[in-house]
């Protein structure tokens, strides 16, 4: 008996890279099916095949038992397949209704009232609360996602694919999304849900297919598995899923930030009076939805973002208005691992050696650049951090995301920082690399470094950090002690509820 939606023997290559290798996937209507796998396991490729964006080199897709050639997204839509992408495809200055109508053939002839009626009906059926007249630029991330889902449902999709939908949401929004997904299931839709977060899988999925390195590892039901087993299937060997938090005695206060203010190029306030203290042998986590001032805060501390008010003091020395080189010339060793690794932290087209000299080449004497030392350091880093690269002279671009991050960290840690700022250091990385990076950060903490850790995974923040500062709209909502705080509390702060707590 064939499943309602069946993919058989799907193979898809990009040049030399085999993204999908003979993959099978079977999904039923009225089922939530999680697709689990590390980066590069082939999840996105597989669902892109299903939604008609990629054409497989070989293999077939059967919908309702009939072989279907999904040669274009339109054909996929016609058979009821709808995909909600990780990056929303919405027109910012149109309202919800207009976005729903876009690309819809019958749209132009529809009456506004009738349309609103349909939208309301769908809203009620799936628990999607949407105001049809609201402009997209006025929406929160969660609302935009709902609109994306609405768009797909409006076109009559009953096979829904969600590509890492929770990555951008608060815990509350995630919960809400799960309710909607549950409703879809109840309405008889097939839901394919891509993620790499085990706890979400355990919470919502009926069945799980694990992919690794482009191949199907196994399909199992939720009841017969555990997060530990899933992680091991994903990675291919035993893993330890707990993060250590070495108990260290908090040292003296190294960095004191008071009432920090900043505006962006459009004159909108991005930092609204941020104050905190950071001590040596401490990891201060920064939580918050993306774009709530984290980037600006990090860059302001590193001397890369102009501030309009407040103070930054490093052991009593003001850093306000100082450039990175001026800060360095004060003898302050500050390392900054920016969020945008290839667009800021590294030069993609250059090799490891040239990337290693990026921040201290200017300290060399004369007009020439000597790369001898950097070559040696690069070789050491490859050994120490287990960086897999064809060689120190290959451009960084050729490396995988995890190895790129290792190169960046290696350079930043090479300078023996006393203050380390890291922004989303494990974003998009595999479990293995992520844990390696947590270890490295903990190592630095034990060495006595003061660390500011901007993260998005609340579980990780709670396990890794000593205190967690929550930002919303450029303001500090509160600073919690990690061992006493819970996800619920963090979630509330992230959505803008203030607390007076400042942690110990």
């Amino acid at each position: 008996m064939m499943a309602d939606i069946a993919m058989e023997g799907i193979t898809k290559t990009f040049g030399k890279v085999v993204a999908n290798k003979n993959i099978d996937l079977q999904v039923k209507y009225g089922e939530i099916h999680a697709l689990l796998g590390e980066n590069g396991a082939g999840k996105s490729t597989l669902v892109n095949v299903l939604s008609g964006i990629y054409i497989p080199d070989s293999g077939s897709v059967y919908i309702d038992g009939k072989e279907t050639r999904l040669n274009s997204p339109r054909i996929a839509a016609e058979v009821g397949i709808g995909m909600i992408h990780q990056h929303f495809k919405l027109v910012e200055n149109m309202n919800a209704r207009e976005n729903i109508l876009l690309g819809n053939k019958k749209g132009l002839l529809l009456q506004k009232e009738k349309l609103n009626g349909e939208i309301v009906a769908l809203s009620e059926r799936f628990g999607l609360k949407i105001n049809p007249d609201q402009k997209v630029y006025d929406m929160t991330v969660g609302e935009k996602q709902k609109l994306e889902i609405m768009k797909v449902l409006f076109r009559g999709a009953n096979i829904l694919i969600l590509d890492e939908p929770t990555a951008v949401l608060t815990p509350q929004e995630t919960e809400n999304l799960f309710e909607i997904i549950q409703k879809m299931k109840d309405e008889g839709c097939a839901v394919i849900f891509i993620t790499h977060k085990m706890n979400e899988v355990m919470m919502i999925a009926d069945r799980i297919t694990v992919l690794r390195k482009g191949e199907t590892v196994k399909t199992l039901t939720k009841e017969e598995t555990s997060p530990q087993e899933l992680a091991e299937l994903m990675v291919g060997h035993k893993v330890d899923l707990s993060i250590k938090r070495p108990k260290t005695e908090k040292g003296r206060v190294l960095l004191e930030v008071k009432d920090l203010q900043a505006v962006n190029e459009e004159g909108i306030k991005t930092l609204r009076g941020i104050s905190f203290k950071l001590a040596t042998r401490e990891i201060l986590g920064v939580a918050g939805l993306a774009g709530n001032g984290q980037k600006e805060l990090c860059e302001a501390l590193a001397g890369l973002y102009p501030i309009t008010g407040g103070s930054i003091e490093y052991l009593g020395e003001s850093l306000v208005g100082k450039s990175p080189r001026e800060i360095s010339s004060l003898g302050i060793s500050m390392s900054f691992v920016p969020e945008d690794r290839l667009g800021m932290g590294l030069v993609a087209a250059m090799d490891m050696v040239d990337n290693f000299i990026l921040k201290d080449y200017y300290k060399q004497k004369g007009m020439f650049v000597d790369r001898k030392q950097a070559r040696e350091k690069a070789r050491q880093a490859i050994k120490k951090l287990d960086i897999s690269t064809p060689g120190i002279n290959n451009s960084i671009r050729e490396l995988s995301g995890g190895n790129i991050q290792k190169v960046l960290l290696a350079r930043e840690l090479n300078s023996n920082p006393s203050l380390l700022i890291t922004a989303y250091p494990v974003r998009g990385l595999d479990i293995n690399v992520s844990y390696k990076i947590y270890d490295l950060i903990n190592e630095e903490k034990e060495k006595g470094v003061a660390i500011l850790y901007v993260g998005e995974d609340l579980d990780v923040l709670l396990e890794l950090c000593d205190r967690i500062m929550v930002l919303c709209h450029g303001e500090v909502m509160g600073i919690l002690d990690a061992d006493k705080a819970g996800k619920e509390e963090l979630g509330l702060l992230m959505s803008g509820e203030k607390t007076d707590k400042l942690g110990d």
Partner: protein
Amino acid sequence: MFRLVKRSEISRKKSIVIRLLAILLAFTAAGILLLTLDLNPLEVYASMIKGAFGSAYRVREVVIKTVPLVITSLGIAIAFKMLFWNIGADGQILMGAFAASYVALNYGDLPRFLLLLLMFVAGALGGGLWALIPGFFRAQWRTNETIITLMMNYVALKWITYLQYGPWKDPQAMGFPKIPNFTANAVLPKLFGVHVGWLIMLLLIVIIHVFLNHTKKGYEIAVLGESENTALYAGMNVKNTIVSAIFLSGALCGIAGMIEASAVSNTLSVEVSGGVGYTAIITTWLGALKPLVILLVSLLFAALLQGGSFIQTAHGIPESTALLLQGMILFFVLGSEFFIRYRVILRKE
């Protein structure tokens, strides 16, 4: 139907095969054109090669054409490396030639070496300062340099035209609008039958190679070209780097202008650049912004020009046909660059 897919990476061997294939195709297509004109393509191609390398004189002519192409390409390469689209090389060549000519016409009696040195410095300054204008605008206000540099070519051209018809017109030329010839001291001497510009060219290739690969400024230019954010992150002075790199870019073009005015024209005229500023954009690009490759590409390009000119007289081919032939070859070679970056996939519905 078919669609295009960006290639992730391509092996060196494959890219060479594609390029060779393109050249083969170019000659085949051009051959058909020649056949319609009742010419034997093989004979024409053979004489193109003969025309470019067949005698010592022809080789020297190829070298003479190579010199300005290489020096200008080096200048453009520095700007392009920084993603500053300097389309203004032609104008910078003219202004370099203008500044050098000012020295040559006014101080023509100075000792030869001193005079040539002054002209060299003036040429570099002329081209450099001219390029500095769009460079400054870009650094200060992020203006689009493509348009500004292009427009400034016409300004430079009109300025030389004005001089040629007006204040610098040679009173001895019986009213013919030309600028007086330089004195013998202002003409670059020859070495092995070719003006010493070729020596300057080789020297500059080495200098620019070292500059781009082994100096701090060269490193900064490379970083800035990849990402301005990274340059800021690394603490570089972005404006300063833009401005100084652009000055250098223009200065090299200006040097090319000085060499052409001094050694080839022996005077200043609107013909002095001969379109090299535009041709060099192609050679720079095909040369992958690498000085040594630029030398090779420019040499081949000059040979193509010289060979194309030769067949006109040797086979009585009209100029327009010879240009068409050159254009076709160029079209296929440039076209192949596209296929090196993209792959065509035929798809069955």
